[in-house]
């Protein structure tokens, strides 16, 4: 069938030249073409079309002409750009997913704080990405070639709104490019947010977020997506298993190491005291929304509406998430003897992170395997980090960090055109850079303003301590 297709295609290439005149005289020909102004005038005079129709025609012609040379791809460009903004909205909703996952998996007394952080992260993330991130992420000029380039306000951005901006590979306007990437930008900080929850000092975290999202993320991201040294090496990371997820996960690890575990989590004598989720319904809402948004995260990373890629990416994304869930259910049921909802939820996310680097580069079978392995890894990683007393309330380091590395190297395993070694170097470089930059930033913040709330505040809850608010107040007796 593919063979026939190829033959047919070839035939067309030959035929097309000859067919030209024949096409012209066919009735169907008219369908795709725009009539001339003269003809429209004639039709109007003949009463075949209304003045409204003629006006509509003129508006349309003007709009398409606005695209100049690139008008030939106008329709493809329109559809692709539409997909970009819809995908941006879907990635946006992942931030609600993150917020609910983190809120649900932590304690009630810290819920306001968690939600506040998440509202702040997305808001600050978008604004700083406009101020400096975008033009740092895709540097016009490098300060250190292929490694560091600091950009400025998107006002500098040429507001190119034609296919000429990026062609098939980036079929969107400059603003489309900005808004899609802006929704990604805050993700790194959101991942950290989950890991440091329930004890981090709010103003310190806010300062950290701004620097981490505005500088560290785009600089490290520029190595790959900004056509820096990783890209030059042939590093493959489709939608960001490394440059988004491992970045966030290893940033989180650094912060947790500086911050220390929640009070009472690790008891003397090596005992671990679990601090259970206060609301699994919120956590489940969070994970489903993340899965939903991930279709925009991966699907939008096609960067056009190219149909073959879209179909493949949606399919691999869904299969990896599903098999991540199934395997983590299986593993946790075997290991801890009970079907654990928190593990099933983490399995979904592990599968998603695991396919993100290769969603367009592997087939459905490989996707099931990659997602499934991620689902197994995440169970082990969570148990491991708890054992070594890295206290990560939502499992962010395991899900995003460890599975991010796995997903990146897995492309080197399952796609023969991608080098395993390059993948390994790339993902380790990104992870290490994320770790180091988070370590440096968070350490400075620690010295300057401290990073941890007081013991009393932690015991009482950050909602009262930092915000003077309760998440579920209602029945309380008050006076002034």
């Amino acid at each position, binding site marked *: 069938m593919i063979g026939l297709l190829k033959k047919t295609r070839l035939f067309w290439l030959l035929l097309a030249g000859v067919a030209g005149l024949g096409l012209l005289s066919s009735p169907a020909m008219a369908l795709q073409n725009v009539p001339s102004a003269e003809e429209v005038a004639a039709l109007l005079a003949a009463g075949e079309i209304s003045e409204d129709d003629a006006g509509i025609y003129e508006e349309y012609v003007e709009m398409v002409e606005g695209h100049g040379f690139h008008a030939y791809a106008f329709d493809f460009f329109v559809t692709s750009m539409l997909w970009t903004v819809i995908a941006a909205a879907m990635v946006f909703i992942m931030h609600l997913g993150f917020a609910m996952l983190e809120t649900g998996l932590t304690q009630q007394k810290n819920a306001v704080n968690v939600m506040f952080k998440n509202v702040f992260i997305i808001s600050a993330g978008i604004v700083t990405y406009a101020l400096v991130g975008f033009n740092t992420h895709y540097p016009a000029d490098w300060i250190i070639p292929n490694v560091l380039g600091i950009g400025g306000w998107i006002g500098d951005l040429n507001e190119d709104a034609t296919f000429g901006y990026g062609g098939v590979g980036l079929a969107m306007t400059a603003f489309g490019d900005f808004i899609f990437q802006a929704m990604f930008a805050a993700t790194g900080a959101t991942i950290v947010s989950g890991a440091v929850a329930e004890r981090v000092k709010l103003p310190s975290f806010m300062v950290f977020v701004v620097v981490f999202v505005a500088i560290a993320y785009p600089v490290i991201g520029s190595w790959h997506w900004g056509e820096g040294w990783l890209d030059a090496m042939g590093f493959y990371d489709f939608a960001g298993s490394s440059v988004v997820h491992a970045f966030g996960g290893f940033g989180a690890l650094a912060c947790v190491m500086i911050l220390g575990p929640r009070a009472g989590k690790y008891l003397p004598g090596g005992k*671990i*005291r*679990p*601090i*259970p*989720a206060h609301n699994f319904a919120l956590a489940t809402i969070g994970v489903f929304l993340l899965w939903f948004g991930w279709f925009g995260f991966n699907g939008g990373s096609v960067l056009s509406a190219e149909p073959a890629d879209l179909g493949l990416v949606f399919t691999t994304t869904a299969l990896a998430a599903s098999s991540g869930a199934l395997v983590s259910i299986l593993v*946790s049921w075997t*290991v*801890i003897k*009970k079907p*654990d909802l*928190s*593990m099933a939820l*983490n399995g979904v996310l592990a599968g998603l992170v695991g396919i993100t680097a290769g969603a367009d580069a592997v087939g459905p079978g490989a996707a099931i395997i990659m997602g499934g392995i991620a689902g197994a890894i995440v*169970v082990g990683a*969570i*148990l491991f980090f*708890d054992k070594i007393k890295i206290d990560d309330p939502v*499992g962010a380091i395991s899900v995003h960090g460890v599975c991010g590395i796995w997903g990146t190297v897995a492309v080197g395993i399952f796609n023969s055109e991608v080098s395993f070694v390059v993948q390994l170097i790339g993902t380790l470089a990104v992870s290490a850079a994320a770790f180091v930059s988070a370590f440096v930033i968070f350490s400075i913040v620690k010295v300057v303003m401290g990073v941890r709330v007081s013991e009393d505040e932690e015991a009482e809850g950050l909602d009262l301590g930092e915000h003077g608010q309760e998440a579920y107040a209602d029945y309380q007796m008050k006076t002034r």
Partner: protein
Amino acid sequence: MKLVKAIIKPFKLEEVKEALSEIGVEGMTVSEVKGFGRQKGHTEIYRGSEYTVDFLPKVMLDIAVSDDLVAKTVDAIKSAAKTGKIGDGKIFVLPIEEAVRIRTDETGDGAI
């Protein structure tokens, strides 16, 4: 007057209430509590860590009754709440020195 304080398994509440109604006890106050005793808590799992939840959900009844009803009240609770399995709960009888019905200012046995 006595205050009969009964701690029972939650799903026995309805039966106990019925049993009390039958012997003429028409008022009570119920709280949700957590109990700790011989009945060992269950094991829960969170992210792979098992832990024991020692405190089990129970329901506590505060029932004020006149002295002559105490024995019947205790018996009614006992038979209705019993499952025979560990954790069925306790009944404590405490003295009440005075009772008042807020609405009518009635006091003593008439208040309950």
